């Protein structure tokens, strides 16, 4: 089965202001219990606090969502085939098939699948497949305050994301896991001190 598309996202840390509008937007759009995109403050366990000593500080945010991995271990782990990788690259969790066994929760190296204790089912970001299928961009991308989220087809040489990838120094989360995430990150730009 040839994959025609690889839909993914680029998260620009330079533009992310840690506002969590993405988290709020996603939860409304998907009517989810938990947040499928979570904004971490890098280098500390205390949210929204900088690292370093006053006034030499850094504060960077890392929005984390399902990576829509090229090689998704979650898909293999699910005994019910509730997790599927689509031809366009989106990894879908179909709650109609999910039985709540939690196998995928352990399988995902990014710890990104959440469990809804109310209906006892797993849930995660489906890259807004319901919107993408209508030609719309993911809701978090539309609502991102800093315009830090870029969505597109990583295979298409003309797409905005491919263009960004070619010029910026990007990274993926946990590259050693061999999952090849479709979510890329741009590091904050170096400071131009006085």
């Amino acid at each position, binding site marked *: 089965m040839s994959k025609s598309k690889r839909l993914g996202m680029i998260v620009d840390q330079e533009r992310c202001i840690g506002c969590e*509008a993405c988290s*709020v937007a996603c939860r*409304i759009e998907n009517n989810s219990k938990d947040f499928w995109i979570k904004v971490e403050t890098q280098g500390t366990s205390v949210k*929204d606090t900088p690292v*370093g000593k006053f006034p030499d500080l850094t504060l960077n945010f890392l929005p984390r969502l399902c990576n829509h991995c090229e090689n998704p271990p979650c898909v293999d782990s699910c005994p019910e085939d509730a997790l599927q990788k689509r031809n366009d690259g989106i990894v879908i969790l179909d709650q109609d098939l999910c039985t709540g066994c939690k196998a995928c929760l352990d399988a995902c190296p990014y710890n990104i699948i959440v469990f809804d204790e109310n209906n006892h089912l797993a849930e995660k970001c489906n890259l807004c497949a319901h919107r993408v299928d209508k030609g719309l961009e993911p809701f978090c991308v539309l609502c991102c305050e800093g315009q830090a989220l870029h969505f597109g087809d990583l295979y298409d040489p003309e797409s905005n994301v491919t263009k960004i990838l070619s010029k910026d120094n990007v990274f993926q989360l946990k590259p050693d896991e061999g999952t090849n995430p479709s979510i890329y990150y741009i590091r904050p730009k170096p400071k131009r*001190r006085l």
Partner: protein
Amino acid sequence: MTENEQVKLIRTACPAHCGIDCCGILAHVKGNRIVKLEPADFPDERDRRICLRGLVSLDITYHPDRIKYPMKRIGERGEGKFERISWEEAYGIIVTNFKEISEKYGWKSIGWVLGGPGAGTTKFGAYLRLASLTQSTRVSAWGYGDAGLPCGSRVIFGHQFPYLYLFGEFWQRKYPELLMIWGTNPAESMPLQNMRKVLDAKEYGTQVIVVDPRFTVTASKADEYIGLKPGTDSALALGIMNVIFQNNLHDKEFILEHTNGAYLVRIDSGKMLRGKDVDAKKPEAYMVWHESSNFHKALSRTSVKEASLTGTYMINGIECKPVIQVLMDLASEYTPEKTAEITGVNKDLIVKLGKRIATAETVRFLTHMGFTRTYHGDISLRGLISVAAITGNVTTSVNSGHVPGILNWSPFLKAIPGKPSFHRIGILNLYEAVISSNPYPIKALWFAFINFLNQCANANKIIEEFYPKLEFIVQTELFLTPSARYADLILPVCSFLEFSDFLAQPYPYVQLQQKVIEPLYESKSDANIVAELAEHLGFGEYFKGGEEGLIDLIMASRSFEGITRETLKTQARKLPTLPEGASFPLSFGTPSGKIELYAEQLYEDGEALPVYLPPIEAPITPGENKYPLTLVNGHSRFRTHSMFANVKSLLDLNPEPIVDINPIDAETRNISNNDIVTVFNDRARTTLKARISESVQPGILDITEGWWIEQFKEGSLNHLTHDIINPVQDKVYEPNMHMNDVAVEVEKK
């Protein structure tokens, strides 16, 4: 597409955020229920946006705690016990009380406390019109944090706001070489209209400097962060000016043309030297020292070109100096060493900063209210503007783009031309008016779009001395806020999705806040409440057409020609653009018509120059202090002041009030993360959770403003703040509350 058949899309706009962001919102409606909100289109697609508060607006509209019908107090004030009444009963109670009180004390004793209407215009205008018709008192709420900036701006620019002069071009996406973000945190307070452009500017190549006592999210994006002590901004400004003058880097041409820098000051009286002092023809003319003729001359277009900026001159036996010389003399005291000592900023950094500002091709100064909420915050702004002015970085004309829209306030301010209008009093002066009848007694108050008790200084004073003196309190509200609990009558108002208003924001647009659904329960818009009350008071003819009539009234201004209520229903409209090559001068409303680096009218107050005067309470200088810590309050992205504090979807991310404490202060007090601590001073004890954070420097505590009183374990933020009036601000415009100038101590509970 069956879904689309049932779902109606209506464009409206969110007025919540003090007008600046003012996001266009596309509401999806099924029947009379809004099912979804998303960012609406703008003529320029880069302006399409929404913030996390706008996103959860439906949680306000459909909040289970909404006040659903008019209610009359049945318990004690503050107890929160009310009973349902009808609108007719409510109007009856109001009319009876207003009659009684006005007969006893005059209509003047009835005040309308109008808070921040956000970008809303007619809901504000309606009250002004009724206040004008009844000649009652309009209580201006600039003073609950937002009067310091206008005070400073009025003195130096002669204008309420400094924005167009300092960063109008930035709003037009013309990005400078250097952007100074001073005393404001747009990442949380104006994420879309301002912060997005900061990020765009950085991408464009602008170097960004942030001056702020807190290491904010905005600071984290800066190329250089200047972490000064709170309230020391004017010392920093003087230190910067000293570097600029010492290196002879000031922009002489600009100073001569646009400021009063060359005007001669009499050293004996501190006043400007005038024609009459030297027997010149024009007695009121300002005088300059004319370099080539080596003689004084009356100010004129030509004489100023050759005027001297420095030196001391004896004229008719009067010692005189040009304003710039006087400013240089003051600045020379602020050596990098001394400035560093006062501000806590590294001295080499001050030198580098001064040189960079003076040598960059263009510098824009992005600023707002935050740093002006200290006792001398108005002078802090003047210091910043002085730096901009002596380096030629004040914008003096709009050379392209959109002419700012002027709202037609006159029918609201003066409902009947030729007849007297309302009386006006500042919100901080209101304390005295109510408590001691000074300058005159206020006996009844109507609060609209304001959470007075929660958001104003010195809560205990309000509860113990202020409320008991009032004979009648009305509040229009969506929720039983800490303030509404003290009302005698609560009137239910709509959320912004249930009524229409005209919004002249965000620059360069105007928008219609279009009614999306009919008002829920028995709620009404403020404008319609006022219109109905006016009818009961015999002024109905001035409110014909209700909401819509008022919108047409305020839009009747030449700047909105061609824009109608109808045309705004589907899209925001841009204000008219200037023709190619045309330019629109930004005038200065000061006595001299120039940027006044020196304000002679404040000489007796010791504030003719942007002097550094230490904070009134903040213990920033080391020494013996009963309360050794400075309390400041930042803005939280989760709230617009006290709005959204009761929204569960945001409380999930940010559940309770916290106080940020620097690790050094925490350690000496044995406080760790998540400990429950009490912040206290002579006024109150406030108990809440601690967060250990380097975002505040040692000696500073930060509690974000807007949490409701009942969300604290004890006290609240404004139980700790003071209501001391700065008499100079009182004289210039209106005194401000100084919430960032407060002394406290903290201990583990």
